[in-house]
C-alpha cells in the first residue's frame, strides 16, 4: 500500500554551464518530465563534495543524481575530471557508510542535450521508484549524525 504511492525524492547536483543549461533547454523545448527531482546548481561538478551526497541521503533523499559537462567539455577545463576521479573512490565508500551505492547516479549532459536530460531524469526517477524508499538513515538515531564542518 505504502509502496504503491511511493514517490521518490531525487536530489540532483548539476553544473551551471552544461547540465543546468541543458535542463533550461529541455524547458524552452517544453519536454515533459516527472516532478520528483530538485536541482541544486553548482558552478562545476568539481565543486561537489562527496559529503553533500551523504547529507542528501541522510536528510531523506531516495536517490541522488550528479550531472555535469561531458569529459573534455568542462567550462573550467578540468573540473569534471577531478569530480570523476573523486567518485571512483567515493562509490565504494558509500556502501560502507550504509548507503546502497546504486541509488547514486552519474551522467554527462551538455548544454545542447535537453532531450537527453529528460531521459536521464525520468530513468533515475523510475529506477529509484522501483527500488522503493531509502530507509538506511531514517532508521538511524540522530546522535550518530555524520560530523559536518559548518563554521558558524
Amino acid at each position, binding site marked *: 500500500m505504502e509502496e504503491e504511492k511511493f514517490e521518490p525524492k531525487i536530489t540532483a547536483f548539476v553544473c551551471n*554551464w552544461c547540465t543546468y*543549461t541543458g535542463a533550461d533547454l529541455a524547458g524552452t523545448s517544453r519536454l515533459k518530465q516527472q*516532478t520528483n527531482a530538485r536541482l541544486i546548481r553548482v558552478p562545476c561538478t*568539481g*565543486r561537489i563534495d562527496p559529503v553533500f551526497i551523504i547529507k542528501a541521503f541522510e536528510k531523506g533523499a531516495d536517490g541522488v543524481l550528479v550531472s555535469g559537462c561531458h569529459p573534455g567539455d568542462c567550462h573550467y577545463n578540468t573540473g569534471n575530471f*577531478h569530480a570523476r576521479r573523486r567518485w571512483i573512490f567515493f562509490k565504494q565508500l558509500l556502501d560502507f557508510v550504509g548507503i546502497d551505492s546504486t541509488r547514486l547516479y552519474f551522467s554527462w549532459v551538455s548544454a545542447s542535450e535537453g532531450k537527453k536530460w529528460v531521459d536521464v531524469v525520468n530513468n533515475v526517477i523510475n529506477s529509484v521508484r522501483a527500488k522503493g524508499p531509502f530507509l538506511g538513515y531514517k532508521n538511524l538515531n540522530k546522535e550518530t549524525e555524520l560530523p559536518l564542518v559548518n563554521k558558524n
Partner: protein
Amino acid sequence: MRIGVFTCHCGENIGRTVDCPAVSKACADFPGVVHSEDYKYMCSDPGQNLIKQAIKEKNLNAVVVGSCSPHMHEKTFRKACSDAGINPFQVEIANLREHCSWIHDDVPSATLKAIDMMRMMVEKVKFNGPLTPIRVPVTKRALVIGGGISGIQASLDIANAGYEVILVEKEPSIGGHMSQLSETFPTLDCSQCILTPRMVEVYQHSKIKLMSYSEVENVEGFIGNFSVTIRKKARSVKDELCTGCGLCVQKCPIKKVALSEFDEGLATRPAMYVPFPQAVPNIPVIDRTICTYFKNGKCQMCKKVCGREAIDFEQQDELVKEEVGSIIIATGYKLYTIDKKPDDSPIHGYGEYGYGKYKDVVSGLQFERIASASGPTSGEMLRPSDKKVPKKIVFIQCVGSRDEAKGFSYCSKICCMYTAKHAMLYKHKVHDGEAYVFYMDIRAGGKMYEEFVRRAIEEDGVKYIRGRVSRIYQDDGKIIVKGEDTIAGVKVEIDADMAVLATAMMAQTEAPKLAQTLGVPYDKYGFINEVHPKLRPVETSSGGIFLAGACNSPRDIPDSVAMASAAAAKALVLFGSDMLEREPVVAKVNEATCAGCLYCKKVCAYNAVEAKEIKDRNGNLIKVVAYVNSGLCQGCGTCNATCPSKSVELLGFKDDQIYAQINAFAEV
C-alpha cells in the same frame, strides 16, 4: 534576516501550470520571510518597482524571486535590488519556468515542486552575505580565427577602431572561399575584384598581425584575458626574407603531382607554390609530402634560384603565445563531399549522380573555377573531360541539403542563388547553349534576390524544372540526367554535356575540436552555437568569444560581412572599458584553519592558488597557508570540495549555502 519572496506568473508561462498565488502564500510562512507576493510580470518595470518598494517598506535584506532561469533575468533582479539598496548577491532566483512550469502538466504536483524550489532558495539566501564584484583589466587586443571574408571584415573593423588584431589563417593565404568565386550574386561583380583590395588592406594594416599557414593550438583564460597558443606551421620559407618574386615557384620541377586546392582539383600545382596569384601574403610554401628534397634529399632547385636565401628546409613548426581580450571565430564552412557520405562510410553519398566517376559532373565550387577568369580555363566555358564548350548544361540543387538520407536536413541557403548565378554566367558565355535547373523550392529571400532569379528565367531563358534528379550516367559522351517535373507530372530526361551539383555547405571538420578548445557549444552538425538565435546571434556562451559567418550556419557573403562587423562591434564594446566587472564567485581561504597542505593548489586548473607565508611582527615564519588570486580564480570550486579542513570556500556556493538547500528539500 528579513527576506522578501516574489513569485512571477510570467504571463501564462508559469501561471498556467503553477498556482502562483498558492506558492506566494506558502512562502509567506517560511521562517525568515517577512514579505511574499506574486505578480504577472516581475521583470517588467512595475514588477521591479514592487520589489524595490517592498525592500524599502519592509526593509528587506535578502530577496528570492521565483521566475525564469537565472541565466535569463538574474542580472535584472540583482540590479533592481541593488538600486533599492540591497547587495546584489543577497538575491537568489528559483527557476520556476524552465525547470518547472514548462516541463510539467499537472498543476498540483508542479505547484508543490515550485514551493520546494522556493524554500530551497530561501534557505540558501540566508547564508549568502554581501559580496563585491571583482574588477579585472581588459587586454585590448583581439584574436580573429579564419581569414575568409568574415575574418577579414572583423579584423579590419577592429583594427580601424585602433585596436590590435591577430588574424590566424590555416591556409597559406587569406581570402577563403570568396577568393575562389567568379562573380557574386545578385550584382554579378567579380568576386576577386572586390575581395583582393581588402586582403591587401589587411596585409598592410599596421594594427593587424597576419599569421597565415597557422592554427590555434590552445586557449586559456577568460573574457578580457585570454592567452592563446598559435602553431605557425613550417613554410620552409623565411617570410621576413621572401620578396614574393615567384622564381622558386616557376623553377620547381615537381609541377603536376598535386591537385590545386584553389582550383578544386581541376588543375595541378607545383610542390613549391602560392595558392593563387593574388595570394596574401604572397609567400610560397613547400608541400613537404611531394617535394623531392624532403622525399630523397635531391633537387633544392628553389634554394639555388632564391637570391635572398629565404628557403629554409630545416624550418620547424613554431609555437607563438599571444595575449588577447576577445576572440572572434570565423572559420567558415566546407563543401559537402558529394561522392562520400559525411561520415566517410564505404557507401557513396550520391553514387546515383556519378560524381567523381564522370569528369563532367562537377560541384558548384568547381563550376566557379571554370567560370572564373583566374581559373584553369581562364574563364572560358569548357567542360573538364574534353575541353569542349558544353551546349547543354544541367544544374541540380539541394545535393546534400534537405536530404536526411544522404546529407543534412537543413537548407544551405545560398544554393538557390548561386545556381541562378551559374546558369546566368553560362548563358552569358554560351549564347546558343541550353541551361536547365532542377529545384525543389526557390528560396530567394534577400535584397534583389528574387528579382535576380526571375532575371535568369525571363531574360536569360534558363529552364527551371521543379523536381529532384534520380540518376546521372554517361552514354556516348553525353551526361544523361533522369529527372521528373512534378508540376507537369512528366518524366524529364536530358542528354546534357555537363552537370553541376549545388552541394551543401557543411561545418568544417575541425570545428568541434576548436569549439572544445574554446569551450563553446556546437550543434549536431558541427556548427558553432550562438547564445540566443534572435537576440544574441553573434555571441557564444563564453564571454568575450564571438561568431562571424558560416561557422555558425550556412550564410552568404552579405550576411557574413554584416555578422563580422557585428562581432567586431561586440569586441569593441568590451575594449570600451579598461576594467571588467566579474562576479565575485571566487574561492576564499580561511587562514585560521588552513593547514597549508596545498591540495587546493594541486587541483586548481588556473594556477590561482599559491603558498603564502604568515609571519609575526619580527618576521618569523608562523605558518604557510594557501592564498587564492581572485584575478585568476574562475570559481569552479574544485578546491573547496577537495580541502580536507574545509578552509577554502567558494563565495556564492559555500558549503553552508548548499547544505541549506539539501536540507530544505529533503527534510520536509
